[in-house]
Every structure is written in structure tokens, then in C-alpha cells.
């Protein structure tokens, strides 16, 4: 049976990238605990508009935890207190009547604030553009079953591919690093036979672009702890291994060795 909560929200309000921003305090009374966190914000916003005040801006779309649009920091934790859960899938039954809740945008140098809880995550797209793909021109593919992929390999690639690109990993990292995001895509593609021809160039260019926007990884493991999809930091180790190997191969190539990109 559902019950009602009376809450106090401290929400980061910032009109635009140039504004300095500050917390605003809002009462959220009569919140049904079957609501999602975003539905609670919808209710607060409807009331704000009723009072003639600017509603709180936040990114959201599918509200099923898969599009990666939503995400902000709740009481110091990206996506809030429930492990493996995006804010759109976080329900108010995990909060108590009378709670004070602090809501802030992702804080990271690479993610400038656009308004309130909305940030730009454009550098993620840049990382993918640098090599997060397999070059497979439309129409040139051979029969899908002509490449056998052992189930454990396919499953592991899938685990990495499950990343939704929400940015929680960056927000959680004291260094604002994007290793978990980047390594997940590299692992997805570098594990598969189809990904081998571009394996070394992929890891090299994606890591370079990543480093041009984001901080460095110093193994705090905060990223893994807050990832709503449970992406493992083992993929970071794999990325580092591939990156070093790629550099090593470059040297060998310069020395006249036989190792090409596909080697």
C-alpha cells in the first residue's frame, strides 16, 4: 500500500552556463511513494509553474533507465541511493517522510552546466567518433552466422555494450575521468572478432580524445560503484592493456616489424 511523504528539496538552480548558480529550497508535500524521483520533480514543477516560478530543468526521456538522458546527484551520489538504478527508475519508496534531499547536476569540468540540472555531455560523442565503431559499410556484410562467436565472448561484449552513456561515472570520479565509459565501448568492440581489424587504432584514438577532455584515472573505483548498468572496471584494465600493446606495436612497426593493424 502506498503512503505519502513530505520532503524538503535543495536543488541547484543555474540560469545558464555563465550564471554562478545557487541552491533553491522547495517543499515537496504529499508525495506518493510509488512515484519515481522524476515524477516527484514533475509534481514540484507543476506547483512552481502554478506559482509563476521557473520550473527545474532536468534531462530525461525514456524513463525506463535505458536512454541515458537523465542523471543528477542526489545527496552526493550520482543517480541516488539505490545501486544499479538511474534516477528515472528510482522510486520514492526508498525515501522517508521528512527527508531533506539535495539535488545537484553532474559536476565535471568536461560537462558544463547548461541550466539547473542539465549538462552538456558532448565529449562522450567525440570519444565515440574517434573510433567507437566497426567500419562496416552498409550492404557489404556476409552472412551473420558465418562468424561463430563463443557465447562467453558474446556475453562479455554485451556486458560492456550495456553502457547507457549517462555520465554518472564521470560525475562520481574525483578526477572527472571517463575511463569507464571509454573502456566499455572499447571492450565491446575489441572483444569481438569483427572488431579485430581496427582494434589497435581504435584504442589509441579513443584514449587520446578521452584524455583531451577528461581527467586521469587513479583507481578510486567510484565509477563502478555508481554505474547504473553495473559496468565493471575490469574493462578499464583491458583498455589499458590494449592501449599499451598498441603503443608497443607502433614501435615495432617503426622498427620494420611485421605487425600491421590487424596483426
Amino acid at each position, binding site marked *: 500500500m502506498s503512503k505519502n511523504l513530505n520532503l524538503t528539496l535543495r536543488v541547484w538552480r543555474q540560469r545558464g552556463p555563465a550564471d554562478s548558480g545557487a541552491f533553491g529550497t522547495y517543499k515537496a508535500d504529499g508525495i506518493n511513494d510509488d512515484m519515481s524521483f522524476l515524477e516527484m520533480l514533475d509534481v514540484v514543477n507543476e506547483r512552481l*509553474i502554478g506559482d509563476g516560478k521557473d*520550473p527545474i530543468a532536468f534531462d530525461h526521456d*525514456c524513463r525506463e533507465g535505458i536512454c541515458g*538522458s537523465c542523471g543528477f546527484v542526489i545527496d552526493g551520489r550520482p543517480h541516488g541511493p539505490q545501486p544499479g538504478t538511474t534516477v528515472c527508475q528510482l522510486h520514492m519508496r526508498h525515501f522517508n517522510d521528512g527527508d531533506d534531499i539535495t539535488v545537484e547536476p553532474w559536476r565535471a569540468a568536461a560537462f558544463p552546466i547548461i541550466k539547473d540540472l542539465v549538462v552538456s555531455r558532448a565529449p562522450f560523442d567525440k570519444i*565515440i567518433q574517434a573510433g567507437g*565503431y566497426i567500419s562496416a559499410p552498409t550492404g557489404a*556484410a556476409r552472412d551473420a552466422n558465418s562468424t561463430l562467436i563463443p557465447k562467453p565472448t558474446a556475453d562479455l561484449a554485451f556486458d560492456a*555494450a550495456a553502457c*547507457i552513456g549517462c555520465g554518472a561515472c564521470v560525475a562520481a570520479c574525483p578526477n572527472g575521468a571517463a575511463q569507464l565509459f571509454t573502456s566499455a565501448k572499447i571492450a565491446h568492440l575489441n572483444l569481438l572478432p569483427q572488431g579485430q581489424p581496427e582494434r589497435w587504432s581504435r584504442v589509441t584514438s579513443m584514449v587520446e580524445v578521452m584524455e583531451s577532455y577528461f581527467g586521469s584515472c587513479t583507481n578510486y573505483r567510484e565509477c563502478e560503484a555508481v554505474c547504473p548498468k553495473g559496468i565493471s572496471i575490469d574493462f578499464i584494465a583491458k583498455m589499458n592493456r590494449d592501449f599499451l600493446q598498441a603503443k608497443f606495436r607502433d614501435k615495432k612497426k617503426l622498427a620494420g616489424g611485421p605487425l600491421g593493424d590487424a596483426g
Partner: protein
Amino acid sequence: MPELNASVPPGPLAEKWDNHKFDTKLVAPQNRRKFQIIVVGTGLAGGAAAATLGEMGYNVKAFCFQDSPRRAHSIAAQGGINAAKNYKSDGDSVHRLFYDTIKGGDYRAREANVHRLAEISTQIIDQCVAQGVPFAREYGGLLDNRSFGGAQVSRTFYARGQTGQQLELGAYQALSRQVELGSVKMYPRTEMLDLVMKDGRAVGIVVRDLVTGEITSHSAHAVVLATGGYGNVFFLSTNAKGSNVTATWRAHKRGAYFANPCYTQIHPTCIPVSGDYQSKLTLMSESLRNDGRVWVPKAKGDKRPANQIPDAERDYYLERRYPSFGNLVPRDVASRAAKVVVDEGYGVGEIANGVYLDFADAIRRLGRATIEQRYGNLFDMYAKITGDNPYEVPMRIYPAVHYTMGGLWVDYNLMSNIPGLFVIGEANFSDHGANRLGASALMQGLADGYFVLPTTIAGELATQLNQPPVSTDSAEFRAAEQSVKDGISRLLGIKGSRTVDSFHRQLGKTMWEHCGMARNTAGLTAALKEIGQLREEFWSDVRVLGENESLNQSLEKAGRVADFLELGELMCQDALHREESCGGHFREEHQTPDGEALRDDDNFAYVAAWEFAGAGRPGVLHKEDLNFEFVHLAQRSYK
């Protein structure tokens, strides 16, 4: 009444596409860079099209309202994608997929398009595997399949319960590669607000930068709309919150015909509504019906917990009514059957608004680990939303608006009645007739985007060779920009008392009550009146705060809801005029004695394509007759 010509190529069904590809004019590789193409929307259809067109050498501009093209709503599709690979040797073939799709659509789709879709289905899987889409595999390393509704073969490829995500990321990655190569210029957080026409041709679009509010124009030789469906007219649906009809509706207002708007798909397995605050409904994939059994108690108002109701006191109504397809009947049939039992008082849950989807037998038979592997993420999602554990108690489900088969009318080339304007994916009306089969939306989106459009668009572009795109300084663009700006000023200037959402909710309630799972003359007539009044109230009393020149989510929503208010009327008008039941369109006046949809092939075997005649005025009907040369029309039976 002018006849609509679908430009279906002549010849035997199975040869039409191959012949047409040969007969279509080509644009030579060195000439492609002379063409500018606009693609709006970056889901499976738009993302695949923009990537492929860029790869071919065209200049592409791609637009999406999300902050990244990867987030288009295709990403939320769960269950799978159909393809006539016959990897299971269970009798599948291109012809069978074609036939199942035509029948599943209740004989209201165009034969030639559907056959082409079935032919291309196999290439899609090849393409996606080559891109690295991690489809489910068997231990031997081969691709795995499962079954979906409306089919008696296993032809659905899947990636856990996140098939849409993986296919979308595949298209997004192919698109990203082209962005890096410079062939595609990407405009995220940008919304199309008007189509620009010159001398009867589509020559560009007007867009709003959602961060700065800047209104700009973009000119092209062809405009491709891949902007998805309009299920959010119901407010509550399984669509993403941002999904909207604005791009296609504004094109409709510029002359593009809107076809079969009343064909909406109500998906049978969604989490039931829990309260007034509800902002959206969540789908539980159709794939669950492979292993889940649908039932309600045999006694009305039975309040015992599910596991205390013995088997003999349960009504597995789908297995009872449809023994040969059982729990895997098509969506429209399953949805109506659920509505019947809930309306009769057999519903379960706190407010008796659901039916059970029970995995107890499957868990006993296969073990919990197998079920977890097949559906783990769906079970987790269910548990998060409801607080119940579906491994221990049955899921409660109820139908919800999911997909819209209607959309802008297109010919065989996927071109609308406006030269230069193409429409692909869910945004067009083409392949699913009056009901879409599960796992066919992903198939159609990718078929259109990767394979059909890049071929057919050349035929149209070839006529434009060496003609520069219309200047965005021309009077046509200036006028369109001005009308967009005026529309925004008008919304901001009303300063009324009601929020945008309150109008949207009210519209959705009217649509769900009168233009939802069951429709009748009285209800539709009442809805038309209600919506007309609501539209007037909206334009005199909506409250949109803030300004145009910054991120303003209320303003974005207001523009979209204004369009939904006009679309809602057209949907009711279409539903009222179609005096038959077919697929997702169920008119209570037209049913068989045992409550199945009763078509009227003599009078309604046509596509209803509506021409805009002004807000609040009835649309003008144009008909495309559906001629079935290869399939024998029959009463659908899944018994």
C-alpha cells in the same frame, strides 16, 4: 477525389524490388557530393539513413532533439528484431514473414512494401552483426532466436531485453564514424519546427536550437523525416517523454498527407497505471509471453494472493480462447482479451486494473537461472517500478499505448506526396497495416534506413542534378522562419492559468477513453467536441513561463502539445470514418459474434490519407486502394 499513386513497380511480387532497384535512376559517386540531404531524427531509421547516405558520399545534416543522437527512443525497444533467416529450420521463409506481416496487419498494408521488408530482413541481421551488435548466441557460437506473437516460427533475433539499445548503438556508431569523416554534420538538441516548400517541393526545414532558442533555416535537395510515432497524444504511453508528432504534423500542415492516423497499437504487456501522477507507462517485452502464462482468477473480485489461487480456479484465457497461438497471439488480440476480462471484473491488483503474467511454470521447468538469463533486466525493471519480485509473484500487466502504425503517407519509394520529402521508420504509415507484429518495428526502421531509402532517394535526387539548393535567404525560408517565431511568441504571450501538462493529460484521457482499445460512434463524436474545446482553451489559457532565448522545456512541450491537440481530432475523425474493425482499430459496432475484429473489405480496403484543411476543420480524405494480388483476404484466426 484524386487517386493516390503508390508507384508500386509492376511484375511478380518477389521480383518487384530487384527490378525497381535496376530501374531507379542512380546518382554517380562523383556527383553525390553535390547533394545536400537533411535527416530529422536519429533513431534506427534516421541514424541508419544518415550513416548510409554519408557513407555513399552525400552531404548530410542530421538533427535530433536529444542531447546525443544515441538517445533516440529506438534505444528503448526491448524484445527483438525479426528476420527470415530460417536458422532454426522451422519452415520460415521470406514469403512466410511477408504473409505473417500482412495477416498480422489485418490486411491493411501494401503488399509490395511488406514483401520488400521481408526480403531485406535477412540483410539487416548480417549488417548489424558486421557492426558488432552483440546478439544472443548459442553455446556453439551461432545466433539464437526466439518467438514473438503472430508467428509459429522462431525468427526473432535479440540482445537480452535490450535489442533496441544495441541496434540503436550500432546505427549511432556508424553515424559517428561519418560525423568524424565529415560527411554528416550533426545537430543535437535541435528541433524541427517547420518544413519549407518552394514550387510544391520540400526544400528545407526551420529548426530551433533548444539551448539558445535560435531559429535557423537549413536547405537541401531532399528532406527525410525519421521522427518516430505519435503515441504520446495519449499522454500515457510507453514512448519516451520527448517523443512527439511535431515534425510530421508541421509537414502535414504544409501539405503532406497523414495516413491511417487512427491505427494505434495498444501493447498487451505493460505495467498497469498506479496513480494520477503517473508520467509514462513501462512496457514489459512481448518476449515474456514465450515463457509467461497470462491468467486471471475464475471468480470475480478474487482478492487472494496469486499463489494461493489453485490452478483449477485460474482462467488462462488466451490459451483457452486461442489454443493454437496461446499466449503468443498478436498484440491487438491479446490487448482486447485483457480489456474484456478486466472490464468484466476479473482484474487483479489493488485497483483491479491488471492481469497476471506468471512465470512459475517456466521457472519450475527451466530453472530460475535460465529465466534470469533470458529476461533478467526486465524482471529487475519490473521490481524497481512496482516493488514486487516477479520471480516469486506473477507480474501484473495491462495494455498501454505503444506504437502508431499510422503516419505520413509514402509511396513505394518512401516519398510523401510532396516531392523531395521522404518519411521513414515509425513516422511513415507503410508496412504494418492496422496492427504491427512484435519485433517488426526494428526491422522496418533499419530496412528503411539502411537499405530502402538510400536506394530510392537517388531516383528523386537524379532529377535535381546540378541544381543548387534553394537559398535560405529566399522569401520562402524567411516566411517559414517568421511563422515559427510568431508561433513561439504566441505561446509565450498567452500567460494563462493552466500548465502544458494539464492540457496534455486531459487530451490523453479523452483519447484513451474514446479512441483507445475500443471505439464507437458516440464516443468518437463526443471526443471530437471535447478536443475542439480543449484546443480553444489551450490557446487562451495555457501558461508557458520564461523566454525563447534559453533552454525552456515548458516551451518545447507547449509546441508539441499544440500539435497533439490537432492530431487528436484527426485521429478521431479517421476512426469515426472507418466503419469497420481491423487490427488495432476496434469499432464496437463491427465485431464477430465471439468479439473479434470484423473487417469490411468491400468498403474499406484502402489507406485513408488525410489532407490538412485548417485547424479545427475536417481533413480532406484521399484514398489509396489496397489491391491484394498475392494474398487471399481472410478473417484472421489465431484459434
